[in-house]
């Protein structure tokens, strides 16, 4: 039974519980993203040198995110929470298109397609959870703007196969990276806010 059965009035999930769920989801999403990337890399990218071109290619690069522990610990928790929200939002659109476009890849294994569908779904759930968390931590402060627009759809649909495969590679590379960031930041925030940095 969900802790707060839908429709129940005045029932609120504790912040600790919300974080537990969010961290489970973010861990799961990154694991899937990592598996999907590795599977795609093994099957479609060997020897093509895609990694050299994927550098500096993420649509979320414009979001300034902490790059190491010190930076992550110095940033205020509200700013880090909002940053997580922005990164998650920035992936709504590309994940939606990834699900439809993956099916056009030649002999795309079902496992890649299944993961794309699962990630898209769980990303939405995580975003909902994060909005609840921000709502509790900083009531009245939920931004809705999408900061980094994704314009990669045309490249996923290109006729030239090499270019199209590189577009997929780059997207999956960025998804693996950003999902790891989100997971790392959420685990840090959970320890800070729920366990007083004493996990």
């Amino acid at each position, binding site marked *: 039974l969900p802790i707060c059965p839908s429709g129940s009035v005045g029932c609120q999930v504790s912040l600790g519980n919300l974080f537990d769920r969010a961290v489970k989801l973010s*861990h799961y999403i*990154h*694991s899937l993203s*990592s598996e999907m990337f590795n599977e795609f890399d093994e099957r479609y990218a060997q020897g093509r040198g895609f*990694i*050299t071109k*994927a*550098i*500096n290619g993420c649509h979320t*690069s414009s979001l300034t*995110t902490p*790059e*190491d*522990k*010190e930076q*992550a*610990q110095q940033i205020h928790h509200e700013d880090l929470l909002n940053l997580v929200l922005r990164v998650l939002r920035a992936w709504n659109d590309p994940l939606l298109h990834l699900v439809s476009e993956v099916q056009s890849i030649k002999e795309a294994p079902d496992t890649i397609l299944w993961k794309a569908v699962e990630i898209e779904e769980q990303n939405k759930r995580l975003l909902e959870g994060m909005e609840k968390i921000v709502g509790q931590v900083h009531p009245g402060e939920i931004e809705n703007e999408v900061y980094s627009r994704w314009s990669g759809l045309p490249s996923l649909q290109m006729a030239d196969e090499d270019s199209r495969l590189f577009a997929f590679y780059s997207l999956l590379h960025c998804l693996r*990276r950003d999902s*790891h*960031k989100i*997971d*790392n930041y959420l*685990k*840090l*925030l*959970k*320890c*800070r806010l729920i*366990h007083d*940095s*004493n*996990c």
Partner: protein
Amino acid sequence: QPPGRPELLRCRSPEKETFTCWWKPGSDGGLPTNYTLFYSKEGDKSIYECPDYRTAGPNSCYFDKKHTSLWAIYNITIKATNKMGSNISEPQYVDVTYIVQPDPPVNLSLEVKKQVDGKPCLLLKWYPPPLADVKSGWLTLEYKLRLKPEEGDEWETIFVGQQTQYKLFSLNPGKKYIAQVHCKPDHGEWSEWSSESYIQIPSDIELKDV
């Protein structure tokens, strides 16, 4: 003769805050040969040299916290140079995010305890590797134990998640046991096994308690 081509063997981060790379020299052409590690980092066109050739021993480069960024690709090459010429390794692309392998856990202790209900159990306790910042949540570690009778061959392996102690109830009185523990970050590689710890289960433990 100019030196042979060096090869970047491996890079590893023990705690997601620093990392080290090791390389294998090629042939030295019979002449004194010098090795230089060059790197560039995603988002920065400049090329830098290894900040520290000493800390991690021969044929290695240690990147301290100041020189370590996550979620960014490092393009790393090694250049071998002697009087006759030089040779450069294949470039390797490294993201510290995906090369995390912690050190083993420490201070594994074993103790036979009697529970409140009088039942005896073997309590195993350990600590995260000292370098790992688990408290702040920067690093999340999971643990696996293994145990076997001293003269036995088969290890019994137990995955215990994030906890740092474990109670075992299936004890054989009079037996001597060996135990080890190792750990893995939430996303990364298992560490080596810890050093072995031993315990002799008292013979006088009443069988009905086991």
